[in-house]
């Protein structure tokens, strides 16, 4: 039917069909792509728009409901704030989000902003400039989720806007307003363009036909006449997990492509499969990889190539990391037979955690010019993807361009050349038309990777008198579905003394979706096991858990963090374990984190002057981790101007752009910062600071290079050089456990991070806060669930896959220890991963402190907690 609607004060006549939702009409029909579609099921709020002034969900509101209505999308919010004398047209809430950094990747931001504007306007009308408490804000915005975990900044922003501090541009009174994240204005107004927002003339839409069986062989696929499609199975024609892509088809509309994909005839011969890792490890279990050749097909769940290891059925490994390993085993064996107090042995289980970046995997490929391939890709590495695409399609890289202006999160799942890119490019080559392939949330939560589940057995032996570490063994089975190469136990080699120890990592493959690198791969998993074992040891000997770690720990940066943590009132006020008896029990826990230092020595940055303005550029991307801001601040510092006076060009890899680092392995900022400073410094040496007088186009380029004499491993692999030294973290968490309902609330988290100099403090804090939020998700809620009989992913929506909400956010206090990295250019290393290792483990230890029951299995859901307390685990 045809209807008339007023959108952002403009009257539009549009054709809608009966089943369409408002978000589809607004994004696809009206081209207003500021509004985002994330969950499609009413859970996340990303699609929020105002209809006659009321916030509604675009994904659940029928498009017909917009008839004769007045609709305001995020693009129209600014004008609503226009007559407040602000000058910049932004609504106070938008300014507050920018000032308080209430965003990271920005994909959830339009939804938050629209709803927060409605809340703010209501609140101000009723309460003037009183500040709403966190509970009021959390209730009002309970319909929103943010995967980056920008919740602390969101609280700060909403409260400040309600206090009236952002009524005028530039701030009011003593509140001087700043834009911390240079692209924040584009993100709070919906102007930022993500891959999912890209529309090309004549574009086709693609959809994936996936297997609903966990294993089998697919016969030849015949596409119906006139249907453009490609087969995406490997040569062996084998399906190994439920949800695996089989074919991709393209059509004029997304709905049509989906229908074609659904109806495609797929000749399929089912085969036996195995979902449960315990069954998979048994002799006689169906083999995921039947032959040696098949095993080569196994994808890797970690960032590097898997270590060579033996196969036995579905068991791959162990890969061993020994240091006097036989001695370690012998000491533990005899301590066990002697029943020594100093031997603590525990077994831990973790569930698979899904990345679920809010921008799904998405690609728009335009190969309509046979000589030049342009690919818009939601990726963590534009430069690397350009080379990989060229390689995959056998092209000269100068004929390939990869674009990712804004990336709505990745968390490790967007590092490689994934199938949606290959499929879209292939279909564009066939059709000579642009082709768009965007995953829906169901696909995203099924097959785009996960932090694998695991079982770890830890044996830690300390001296009964001094508690000096005598031996440590860690055995981890990782459950990464069809993927191999997990490195979890091995991470235990890097902490606490050089005592005899043995780490063994095993992959147990099953017909489950593949794991993938996830922010600090293996880190939170090993911390959950090791840090609780340490805590248990401290408890057994009545030692202060921080002081015990300090006794063992050779890392001077973490020593500094221990001193900081010990002095925290939260720590000093912690109760004796198991001392509480009431319904609500509070507890405090600590955990330490450790991570490697990586850098991309090939990173090159260009600084030039264009029309009197500084422009800095390289082929890097910004997925909310701050590349733009880091580049702007580096150059601004050299020229002594505001970061907003520097234009940043990134998110484009072509033959004109210099190589930039991938956003992974915590290598981005440490590669960019000093390189940008060097380029700016040499430009300044040439032209001074008179930009207006500088010749247009004058430029300087610098290359990062390795840290001289500083590499731990003398090779650079895939843009990564392993640098010398470890970054460090310590988290102290306070929880409240409701022993009646089994619910755990995290009240407060202190995060101490030792990565040297912090180049963009506000953004760095946001990253560390987000790590805490994701750690809380891992600790308490997040749990991929598969059907045991089919291997289908049941948690394929954001209702059943539960990520932390605004109201679950504790008070978070981030402390940076900035010493100790002077030998690295710029004086600091990356923090994206080290900040993510210890939060969940600290929550586990806090629950133990509160209840006397140690949670060994993640996540600590109410059912587990109730069962644990009931079973008399409480001491």
């Amino acid at each position, binding site marked *: 039917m045809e209807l008339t609607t007023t959108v952002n004060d403009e009257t539009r006549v549009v054709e*809608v*069909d*009966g*089943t369409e*939702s408002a978000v589809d009409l607004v994004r696809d029909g009206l081209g207003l792509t500021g509004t985002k579609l994330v969950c499609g*099921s*009413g*859970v996340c709020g990303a699609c*929020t728009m105002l209809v006659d002034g*009321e*916030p*509604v*969900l675009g*994904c*659940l*509101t*029928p498009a*017909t*409901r917009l*008839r004769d209505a007045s609709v305001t999308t995020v693009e129209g919010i600014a004008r609503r704030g226009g007559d407040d004398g602000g000058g910049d047209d932004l609504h106070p809430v938008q300014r507050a989000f920018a000032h308080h950094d209430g965003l990271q990747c920005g994909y959830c931001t339009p939804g938050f902003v629209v*709803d927060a504007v409605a809340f703010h306007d209501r609140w101000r009308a009723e309460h003037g400039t009183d500040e709403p408490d966190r509970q009021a804000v*959390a*209730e*009002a915005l*309970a*319909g929103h989720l943010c995967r980056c975990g920008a919740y602390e900044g969101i609280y700060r922003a909403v409260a400040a806007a309600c206090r009236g501090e952002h009524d005028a541009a530039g701030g009011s009174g003593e509140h001087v307003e700043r834009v911390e994240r240079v692209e924040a204005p584009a993100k709070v107004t919906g102007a930022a363009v993500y891959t999912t927002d890209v529309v090309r003339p004549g574009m086709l839409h693609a959809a994936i036909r996936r297997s*609903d069986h966990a294993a089998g062989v697919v016969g030849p696929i015949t596409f119906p006449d006139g249907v453009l499609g490609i087969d995406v199975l490997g040569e062996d024609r084998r399906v190994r997990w*439920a949800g695996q892509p089989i074919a991709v088809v393209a059509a004029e509309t997304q*709905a049509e492509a989906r*229908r074609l994909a*659904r109806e495609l005839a797929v000749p399929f011969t089912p085969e036996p499969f195995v979902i449960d890792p315990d069954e998979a490890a048994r002799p006689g279990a169906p083999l995921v990889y039947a032959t040696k050749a098949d095993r080569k097909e196994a994808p890797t769940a970690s960032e590097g190539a898997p270590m060579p290891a033996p196969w036995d059925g579905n068991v791959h490994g162990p890969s061993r990391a020994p240091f006097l390993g036989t001695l370690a085993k012998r000491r533990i064996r005899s301590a066990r037979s002697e029943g020594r107090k100093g031997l603590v042995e525990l077994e831990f289980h973790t569930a698979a955690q899904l990345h679920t970046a809010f921008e799904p995997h998405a690609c728009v490929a335009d190969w309509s010019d046979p000589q030049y391939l342009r690919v818009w890709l939601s990726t963590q590495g534009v430069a690397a993807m350009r080379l990989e695409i060229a390689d995959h399609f056998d092209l000269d890289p100068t004929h390939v361009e990869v674009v990712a202006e804004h990336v709505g999160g990745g968390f490790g799942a967007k590092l490689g050349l994934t199938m949606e890119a290959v499929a879209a490019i292939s279909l564009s080559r066939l059709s000579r038309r642009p082709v768009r392939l965007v995953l829906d949330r*169901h696909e995203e939560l099924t097959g785009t990777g996960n932090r694998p589940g695991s079982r770890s057995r830890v044996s830690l032996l300390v001296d009964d008198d001094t508690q000096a570490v005598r031996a440590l063994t860690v055995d981890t089975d990782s459950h990464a579905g069809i993927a191999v190469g997990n490195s979890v136990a091995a991470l235990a080699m890097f902490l606490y003394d050089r005592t005899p120890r043995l780490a063994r990592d095993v992959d147990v493959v099953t017909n489950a979706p593949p794991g993938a690198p996830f922010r600090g791969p293996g880190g939170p998993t090993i911390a959950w096991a090791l840090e609780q074992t340490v805590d248990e040891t401290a408890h057994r000997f009545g030692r202060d858990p921080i002081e015990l770690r300090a006794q063992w720990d050779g890392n001077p940066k973490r020593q500094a963090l221990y001193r900081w943590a010990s002095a925290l009132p939260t720590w000093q006020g912690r109760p004796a374990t198991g001392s509480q008896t009431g319904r609500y029990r509070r507890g405090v826990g600590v955990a330490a984190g450790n991570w490697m230092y990586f850098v991309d020595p090939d990173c090159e940055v260009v600084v030039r002057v264009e029309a009197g303005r500084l422009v800095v550029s390289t082929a890097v991307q910004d997925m909310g981790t701050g590349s733009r801001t880091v580049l702007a601040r580096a150059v601004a510092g050299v020229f002594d101007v505001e970061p907003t006076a520097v234009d940043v060009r990134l998110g484009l890899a072509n033959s004109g752009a210099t190589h930039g680092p991938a956003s992974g392995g915590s290598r981005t900022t440490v590669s960019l910062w000093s390189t940008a400073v060097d380029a700016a410094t040499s430009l300044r040496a040439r032209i001074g600071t008179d930009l207006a007088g500088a010749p247009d186009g004058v430029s300087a380029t610098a290359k990062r290079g390795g840290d001289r004499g500083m590499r731990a491993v003398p090779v650079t692999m895939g843009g990564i050089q392993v640098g010398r030294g470890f970054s460090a973290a310590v988290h102290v968490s306070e929880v409240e456990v409701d022993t*009646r*309902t*089994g*619910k755990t609330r995290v009240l407060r988290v202190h995060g101490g991070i030792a990565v040297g100099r912090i180049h963009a403090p506000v953004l760095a804090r946001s990253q560390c806060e987000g790590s805490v939020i994701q750690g809380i998700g891992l600790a*308490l*809620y997040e749990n991929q*669930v*598969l*059907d*045991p*009989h*089919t291997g*289908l992913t*049941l*948690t*394929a929506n954001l*209702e*059943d896959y*539960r990520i*932390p*909400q605004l*109201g*679950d956010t504790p008070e978070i206090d981030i402390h940076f220890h900035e010493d100790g990295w002077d030998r690295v250019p710029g004086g600091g290393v990356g923090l994206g991963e080290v900040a993510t290792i210890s939060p969940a483990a600290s929550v586990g230890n806090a629950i133990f402190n509160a209840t006397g029951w140690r949670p060994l299995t993640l996540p600590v*859901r*109410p*059912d587990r907690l*109730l*069962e644990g307390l009931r079973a008399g685990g409480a001491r």
Partner: protein
Amino acid sequence: MSVTILTAYDQRPDGLDGLDGPDGTGEFAYRAGGTDLQERLRTTGATPHILDLTGVPGFAAVERTDDGTTLGAGVTVAALARDLAGDYPALALTAGGLATPQVRTAATIGGNLLQRTRCWYFRHPHTSCFKSGGDSCPARDGRHLYGNVFDTAPCVHPHPSSLAMALLTYAATVDTTQRDGLAVGEVLGDGSDPTRDHLLADDEVLTRVVLPPPAPGEQAAYFRSISRFEAEWPLVEAVVRVVRDDAGTVTSCGVAIGGVAPVPLRLAAVEALLTGSTLDDDTVARAAASAAQGANPLPETGYKVALVEATVREVLERVRG
């Protein structure tokens, strides 16, 4: 792929009661707020003919008379939470405690009663079960962490409607285009037919929900046990309404629980224990314990036995004040 917005009925004197199915035999669906339907359409790609009820006169009307209060099927959950807080606090608190603010703004009482199950198998595009044309329940031998703890029916997922639970405590009735005065239990059934979430005919429109007159002095409490802050489907939810005399003795009450059985359960035994008591500690403890009586959990829902008791205890303590 078409839509009828039923404003044609504007001209009909009989408004809501004049509704019937569309001409022809094609697939069709009624739509109210769309918060359940739109998600299912997106997932399945189905394109039925839509009969949109929102334009029908009286759809969102609240009428108060001496005989009680009549709620049009289109009264939103947000309106219940806001406008009935004084007269029907148990219903209002339940309404205010479900879903999210944006969902409550759009969702209707009729749609809430008639929404389809939230079982993760049912919502999965690649499974079929009793409720989606299949002939088995894969959750029973599969994963049913959020399943029933009173396992009394072939389908093991609880009925989703929180409002149905609250309406049970008022003995509210439901009118449709074909029948009047149905008890909530007659609308939802008892779960013995696992293919259905409600028993209305395909072309039957829920028109009104009728509540008895408000009980002066009614006090109420609602609570859901969940793992996060808010906006999560309940593991177990409970609601209580009581009227007490000057001495604090309960003269009448209603208690119901959800998230536990094929349909929400009104707990007559608990009500009997509470009536005549002053909600003293001992009575509350006994009443809460009796709430879980008869529970026969599934392999993964054993935890809900304790949670039923805990959740009922929680609302009783809250209503006691």
